[in-house]
């Protein structure tokens, strides 16, 4: 796939233009242009100039800019490459991903045959009506879920990741090089602390040289919101959003404007839930019951979670997105994703920000498409795991060695945190500050950095434990941690 940069860029632009053409924004702009007082006359060129100025004055320029910005933020896609290659650049990972997906699907199918529950079925009218009535209190329903088990849990996923090997790379060859002590045995490039510092340096400078006064910062954020400037919102999010403005800033960054058509779209999905019963619904139901319903922070939002997740499992726009990634949802009967145990934790924290289901939904979907899906994608999660292990091995070699010796591989503990972006482990206020940075830097890297920072923070206690169980006990409660100070100390005070 050798392309010079110019070709790639023009392909990208063509791709964006193609996507925007089909968008609602495009038809809106078209309509707006039609109502302009200008008519094409002799000089077509002047006419176009006028239209453009007219649209700018009417505020369309910003909207268009934000839409383009959103396209650029989406996971990179190379429209020229064949669809198979778009998904995962490395062939062996592509193969592994496919076989994992097949396995998950097989397990879902076997649940279906075992229990005699079809993967999808039309609900009888009476049942549709019943569901409509209790749409806002699905939590009171107590279907028999004992028969259902989650199709997979994070630790199953970890097992397959550990077994991943690059066939072209024999690790026994490079005994001379300091070998990797961790579980992930794949040679990928990840950043070390000096490089990470480079990434986060802007933030540091900000802190040292130009400490915002809170009031000024809040004012600037409010300004960005009133100007609807997506790119600026993302910059500010790196500093941690002010609580009162976070909901708006995130929506702006994600370009979720909650237009009437978004609301309508959500309602269509709702109708889909009412009409069809899917086997995965039971898994979603069970997942919420096992996680959020018992959670001190999230139990009050139980019913929102059902609504959002059930709609999500029927959302074809999510499917659309998968064209460019290796995670391939099984098409015919499930539109979205087979949830792993804990999946609902991606939605739960968002309930603190949005109390309108359609808005909550669109923000979640956007977060999923941009970020969360990477946790379920081989190259994404493997990179994070490797990053975490490298950081620990490089900067806390004694600790790593000790934990490895007692059979407590750090990744075995940290994987579940990372795969949920720490949701359900950190206190919500801290979690939101972490996600501010995910959005702000448009990267999940910070999750791996924080995981390593947590180990560094508890290093002394961890050096004393002698088993996996006691190591896990030391790290059991993360709800008192303060995210940013931990990361700062780790990045800027760690010496090798």
């Amino acid at each position, binding site marked *: 796939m050798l392309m010079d940069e110019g070709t790639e860029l023009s392909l990208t632009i063509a791709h964006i233009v193609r996507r925007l053409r089909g968008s609602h924004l495009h038809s809106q702009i078209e309509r707006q242009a039609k109502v302009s007082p200008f008519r094409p006359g002799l000089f077509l060129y002047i006419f176009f100039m006028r239209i453009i100025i007219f649209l700018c004055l009417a505020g369309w320029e910003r909207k268009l800019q934000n839409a383009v910005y959103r396209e650029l933020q989406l996971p990179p896609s190379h429209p020229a490459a064949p669809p198979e290659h778009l998904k995962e650049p490395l062939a062996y990972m592509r193969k592994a991903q496919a076989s994992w997906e097949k396995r998950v699907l097989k397990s879902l199918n076997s649940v279906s045959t075992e229990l005699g529950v079809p993967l999808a079925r039309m609900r009888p009218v009476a049942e549709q009506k019943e569901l409509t009535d209790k749409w*806002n*209190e699905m*939590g*009171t329903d107590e279907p028999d879920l004992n028969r259902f088990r989650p199709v997979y849990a994070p630790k199953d996923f970890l097992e397959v990741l550990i077994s991943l090997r690059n066939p072209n790379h024999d690790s026994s060859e490079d005994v001379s090089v300091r070998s990797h002590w961790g579980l992930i045995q794949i040679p990928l490039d990840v950043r070390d602390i000096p490089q990470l510092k480079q990434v986060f340096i802007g933030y540091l400078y900000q802190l040292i040289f130009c400490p915002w006064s809170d009031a000024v910062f809040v004012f600037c954020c409010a300004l960005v919101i009133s100007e609807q400037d997506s790119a600026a919102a993302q910059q500010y999010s790196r500093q941690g959003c*002010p*609580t*009162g403005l*976070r*909901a708006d800033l995130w929506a702006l960054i994600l370009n979720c404007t909650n237009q009437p058509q978004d609301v309508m779209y959500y309602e269509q999905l709702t109708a889909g839930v009412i009409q069809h019963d899917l086997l995965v619904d039971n898994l979603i139901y069970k997942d919420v019951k096992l996680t959020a*319903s*018992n*959670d*001190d*922070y999230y*139990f*009050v*939002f*139980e*019913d*929102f979670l059902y609504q959002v997740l059930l709609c999500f499992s029927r959302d074809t726009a999510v499917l659309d997105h998968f064209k460019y990634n290796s995670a391939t949802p099984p098409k015919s009967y499930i539109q979205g994703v087979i949830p792993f145990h804990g999946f609902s934790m991606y939605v739960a924290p968002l*309930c*603190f*920000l*949005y*109390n309108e289901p359609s808005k909550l939904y669109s923000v979640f979907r956007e977060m999923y498409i941009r970020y969360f899906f990477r946790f379920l994608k081989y190259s994404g999660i493997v990179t994070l795991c490797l990053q975490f292990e490298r950081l620990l091995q490089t900067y806390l070699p004694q600790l790593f060695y000790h934990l490895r010796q007692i059979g407590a591989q750090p990744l075995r503990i940290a994987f579940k945190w990372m795969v949920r972006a720490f949701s359900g482990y950190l206190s*919500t*206020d801290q979690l*939101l500050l972490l996600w501010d940075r995910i959005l702000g830097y448009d990267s999940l890297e910070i999750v791996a950095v924080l995981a390593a920072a947590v180990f560094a923070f508890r290093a002394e206690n961890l050096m004393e434990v002698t088993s996996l169980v006691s190591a896990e006990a030391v790290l059991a409660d993360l709800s008192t941690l303060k995210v940013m100070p931990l990361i700062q100390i780790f990045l800027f005070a760690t010496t090798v």
Partner: protein
Amino acid sequence: MAGKVKWVTDIEKSVLINNFEKREWVPVSENEDWNFYWMSIQTIRTVFSVDTGYRLSDEQIVNHFPNHYELTRKDLMIKNIKRYRKDLEKEGSPLAEKDENGKYIYLDFVPVTFMLPSDYNLFVEEFRKNPSSTWIMKPCGKAQGKGIFLINKLSQIKKWSRDSRTSTFVAASSGKEAYVISLYIDNPLLIGGKKFDLRLYVLVTTYRPLKCYMYKLGFCRFCTVKYTPSTSELDNMFVHLTNVAIQKHGDDYNHVHGGKWTVSNLRLYLESTRGKEVTSRLFDQIHWIMVQSLKAVAVSGVHSKTTFQNILTNVNASPSLTSSTANDRILKYNLINDTLNIVTPNGEIPDCRWSRSPPREALGNYQVLYDEEQAQSEHTDLRDLRSRSGQSLGSKGTKGGAGVRPVTASWK
């Protein structure tokens, strides 16, 4: 000041006893010489009754003020607040200012309430003005939601008075089974569609001058069933009463979290969804209500927890020390710990000559809610508190314009 504190309690709760033992205090019986007695309200009533006439020595403290029921009995709380407002009005205090409809601007924080049976006629008059309203009936001397029910027809009151005449008539006439009836607030703020109230802990160390502390780690108590103002659900207490004692009998009660959500969660949620300004204003108003209701009984006294529902509905003298969940146990243990740190600095034997102002570091999760002495020494008084809170209680641009009063309406 050497010597260990001798303690006694008639409440066998581990959160208390563990705290005493941690301080290596010496357990004694109530007949021996004691310094610290954590007593139930029944005990305090007997110990300090006119007959016993017990007086505390300089080295003794207890966990209640003798007249705690001035706030904790529902009828007396209402009477005290009404009297307090009248007194302020007579003094010409700006706090007692009224709006054009004759409503108190700053002191309208209890729903319209009458005593039954004594105020029956007044109630009927009020009811007729607005016959579609719902009212809540509560026995004056009970707690934990016991004996509470909702009504929306006069006939239900008549039936109640008939029934109570036959069953507990004697008690009723002796005043023991008196009820209060309050206008039911039917548009509470809902989260996840459910009604909740706040359990906030306030420690009062002296009434004159008033000095009180607010515990930062309060929590919301959620109903287990979705709220609906529909009259068809009026007798479903799982919809309307937030008491844990009621909710825990519901089918949907969750024993892991017990329907309890921390106040910091509430703050985060409100700030995120409604903005910072509105949220701070709400909390200011809550604090304002607490101080005012304590002021209202400054002649008597409580050590208490309070229950707010944006509007003050009730105050308890002995908050439940039963822990329904693991987190609850930790919270209550720490609550007692911080309380003891304030009332017995350094765990020493109490001395009535102690300065009553522990340093900030010693407050734990408490923060000073109001300090009359300090307020006066700074030449400030209630008026400044008002203008301070008044700012946030704010005449300026509250949603719905109803903002000066801490009413639920401003949330809807």
